[in-house]
């Protein structure tokens, strides 16, 4: 059991989940449900589908927590990658890309809505929002289509009616710039 789970790191919680600690799973869910559900809603555009996938994700975490290797990556990255992969698989099963395609939403920093004024992970959200405003519109759009709609580079090129090489360059330069900006902003903040 985890008497003070709020103070435990994500890796601590995953270790406990690997030992089949139910309370640890509940704590991890409470910690990340908002951001993961927001991500799933953004991808799937359906509350019913998003809730279904969210449930699948945490059941998978329960079964696969022992696979997580802290030497290889961060718990948040592992969790969000798991959620996004499942959502995109579901999206492809539903064949709903065309439905989603008609309503692409840009995620420029000023467009981000902070639901219920929740302060959850607010610092990271501010960092990412600030970094995204530094990208060009073309870079942001290409990354949006890849990350939130699961489109491949060829599909993005077709959607944007741009040469494949141009799309690859935009995505790569966008990711490099994003990484640099996030790193710089981390540097400017003290513990």
């Amino acid at each position, binding site marked *: 059991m985890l008497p003070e789970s709020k103070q435990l*790191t994500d890796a601590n919680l995953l270790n406990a989940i690997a030992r089949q600690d139910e309370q640890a799973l509940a704590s991890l869910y409470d910690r990340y449900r908002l951001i993961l559900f927001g991500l799933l809603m953004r991808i799937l555009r359906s509350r019913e589908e998003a809730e279904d996938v969210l449930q699948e994700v945490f059941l998978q975490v329960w079964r696969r927590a022992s696979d997580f290797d802290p030497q290889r990556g961060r718990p948040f990255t592992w969790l969000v990658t798991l959620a996004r992969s499942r959502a995109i698989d579901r999206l492809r099963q539903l064949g709903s890309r065309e439905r989603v395609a008609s309503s692409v939403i840009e995620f420029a920093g000023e467009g981000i809505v902070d639901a219920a004024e929740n302060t959850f992970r607010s610092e990271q959200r501010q960092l990412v929002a600030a970094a995204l405003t530094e990208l060009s519109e073309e870079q942001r759009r290409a990354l949006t289509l890849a990350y939130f709609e699961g489109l491949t580079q060829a599909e993005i090129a077709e959607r944007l009616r741009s040469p494949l090489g141009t799309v690859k360059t935009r995505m790569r330069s966008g990711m490099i710039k994003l990484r640099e900006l996030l790193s710089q902003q981390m540097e400017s903040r003290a513990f």
Partner: protein
Amino acid sequence: MLALHALSALDGSDLRVMKEHLVSCSTCREELEGWRDTAGALAHAGELLEPSAQVRARILEGIRSAGKVDAASSNVLPLQSRPRQAFWVPRYAAIAASLLFVALLVGWVILWQQNRRANQELAKLSAQYEQAQRDRERNQKLLEILNSPGARVTELVGTNEAPTAHAVLTYDAKSGQAILMTNGLPPAPAGKAYQLWFIVGNLPMPGRVFAIEPNGTGVSSDQLPLAAAKTAGFAITQESAAGATSPTGPILLRSSS
């Protein structure tokens, strides 16, 4: 290509080439994890939305049901009652059967012992092979770093907390790839591990945790944040095995610069 792969955006021949390459290149596998961190950060750009309360309840119910199924499936089936031996079986047939059974049992025990020894030998050879593979990959990566234009080598010396400890951090200031090699540190207690820190100004940024081998050495691959790759000091502390986001233990080794 790694950045696009982290977004799951590769397709066609690019995806095939990338998958084949990753099988044999540990350096790129590690770099891919860094790109996944960057891609994962995009999740923060979405809205924060509250799922219905039933989702939490369904998840907890789901894991309890899974536990019951596991428990049920692991139950040992009750033994069937042994059928009574027919009264008409001749005694000598029973004796012969007993002898045959004993002979088979002895043969099985011998084969089992031989098999166990062979498995132990195989496991030992397999472990040696895996260790050799890891050493080879580490040395290859070390050479790559040392041959890079941004190669740096920094020495970390033990503080009063660990006066006999010593470490060398080799890294590429451009890519951030780093390898830490230590000696003189005792194995960490159960539940604990050593952790590398990158000090930029007064800001300690967490590196990876690592363990000490039985021979007293420790080796760890890491990825320096770009900020740390330019100008940073380095330190090592003992933390929980899962690592910490800020140091809690005393500094055991630190770089001189």
